[in-house]
């Protein structure tokens, strides 16, 4: 379960002074659901998700993630969250298995449990062929699988995906989309940010349209179509951000 409550993030910018990257954003996402944050570049998606993953601390407001407050128990939140974005790169000089082992150990898994989980994940994602190859020498698709394995190794109940398909080819993007659906089917709480309308239409149970740091519209795809009297999500998005 994720419950964002009036999240605010302010930054100081040399030229612009104080900037509100996220401005009182509230939403919730239940287990077994995918919540999609839809917004243009600079809308505040990444900052919101980074606050949920406790990479950034909110300036105001808070969020409850898997029962823990992001401000009070950031380490407990991180132990329940799997965070994946295009910015979360791999350590190139580690092998695929070393990369996953490292994160498993950081999550406090004991060695027998870690070995069992790695075997299961590597089998499921068909990674055994390249388990001992250094990440620098892997293809984009293989790297994506290692990143997925890294986020899954501690069996998190909450998954946060920040534009995970940016820069990926069709096949790699499909792998990610399939993985996101699988997480939902396993009962995980999934938050997903993107600016690609088709991904939102295909994947998300609930959609939040974010612009200028504010959550301007929210609901299921059917709710949004009904509210704005439009069928095409792109038209709805434009209507919301440029009223």
């Amino acid at each position: 379960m994720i419950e964002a409550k009036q999240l605010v993030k302010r930054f100081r910018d040399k030229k612009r002074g104080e900037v509100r990257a996220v401005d009182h954003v509230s939403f919730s996402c239940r287990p077994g659901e995918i919540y999609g944050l839809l917004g243009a570049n600079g809308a505040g998606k990444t900052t919101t998700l980074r606050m949920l993953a406790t990479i950034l601390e909110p300036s105001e407001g808070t969020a409850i993630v898997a029962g823990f407050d992001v401000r009070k128990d950031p380490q407990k939140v991180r132990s329940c969250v799997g965070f994946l974005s295009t910015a979360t790169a791999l350590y190139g000089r580690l092998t695929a298995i070393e990369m996953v082992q490292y994160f498993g150990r950081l999550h406090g898994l004991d060695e027998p449990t870690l070995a069992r989980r790695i075997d299961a994940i590597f089998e499921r994602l068909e990674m055994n062929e390249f388990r001992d190859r250094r990440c620098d020498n892997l293809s984009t698709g293989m790297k994506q699988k290692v990143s997925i394995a890294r986020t899954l190794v501690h069996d998190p109940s909450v998954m946060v995906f920040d534009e995970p398909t940016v820069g990926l080819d069709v096949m790699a993007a499909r792998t990610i989309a399939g993985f996101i659906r699988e997480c939902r089917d396993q009962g995980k709480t999934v938050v997903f940010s993107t600016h690609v309308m088709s991904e939102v239409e295909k994947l998300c149970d609930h959609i939040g349209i974010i612009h200028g740091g504010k959550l301007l519209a929210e609901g299921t795809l059917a709710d949004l179509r009904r509210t704005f009297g439009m069928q095409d999500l792109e038209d709805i998005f434009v209507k919301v951000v440029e009223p």
Partner: protein
Amino acid sequence: MSLRNIGIVYRKELTDSLRDRRTVISMVAVPLLLMPLITIGGGVLLIRQVGQAEQEVPKVMVLGGEDSPNVRAEIEKLTDVQIVPSKPDYSEEISNKEIRAAVEIPNGFDTALAGGESMTVKIYMYEGDLKSGFGADRLQKFFRDLRDRTIREELKARQLPETLVRPFDIEQQNVAPPEKVGGAVLGGLVPYFVILLCLTGAMYPAMDLTAGEKERGTIETILCSPVSRTHLVLGKFLMVLTASLATGALSIFSMAVSFGVGKHLLLGVADGAVDAALQITISGKAIVSIFLLVVPLAVFFSAALLAISLFAKSFKEAQSYLSPLMIVIVLPAVAAMLPGVELSTPLSLVPVLNTSLVSKEIIAGTYHWNYIALIFVSSCVYATAALWIAVKMFQREDVLFRS
């Protein structure tokens, strides 16, 4: 404080860094190759240069003396100099290294010498040029011998003892043990290289583990883990410290071996200052003492480099921050080699300079325990402050996500 988490981060960083060719080169190859190159290679080169200069028969010019055939005839008999025809532009020829020296014989030299009149013989040379120095020395020796011979003959003719003009001799005698003489000559170089290599050994991993992570996008990956940022930075710091100490230890080891081998090869072959420098003996006690003093300095370097590199957005930016730092560190290390700069209470508080000065004394076999304690404590204070800053920097979002 979870030592387990710090250990996990440290082990990963160690594995990662040991697979990085650039880290291995700066940590292992540089100290192991640089020291023998400087001590043995440099020593051989120096001795060879001096030997070549000594063997050369220098070209010298004799100016004037046309009315003094006796002295000219004697000079021309010299076999360790080659007399070339005199020219008015002798100073230019000396400056251009076409000839090594020139001697100006005053008018009426022979007559004045026989008559006991005082004269001045001028020798022209290129100050600082080794070969010119040898040429001038040979001319000077010739005229000194001539003067002594003349005095002796004059005294003999008047049946006077030689002690009349030389009632007593003055002799300087060294009472310092050979290792102290060697320490004074070369002792400053040892801490200079150890400190410099401790810094360079830490520099690359510090940049790679902070700015490098930002550039490669792995900083966000690691921040997703439940490990606290303090544990993360301490694990990284330990890796940088390992690289710094490994480089320092290898350079001390390499230097000790190089001195031992160099001494064996070169002792007796060289003379003067070079021979004195070769008397240097780096004892086991000195090695351990220097290493213990370098530990807090390495902690200071590692933490400071980590904090500065963390501020950079990219590896290149980190390099531009750290390059000027090299000069800041090298200057006090060089200052310790200057003559007259000696340990004092105020200088014991100056980082880098204090360790350089005390290490120089230790190599010469002198242990000023009060200064050693003061330097160790002050270095620990600086190291703790630098580490505290590094930990604080790692907590700051504006530093971690600087754009």
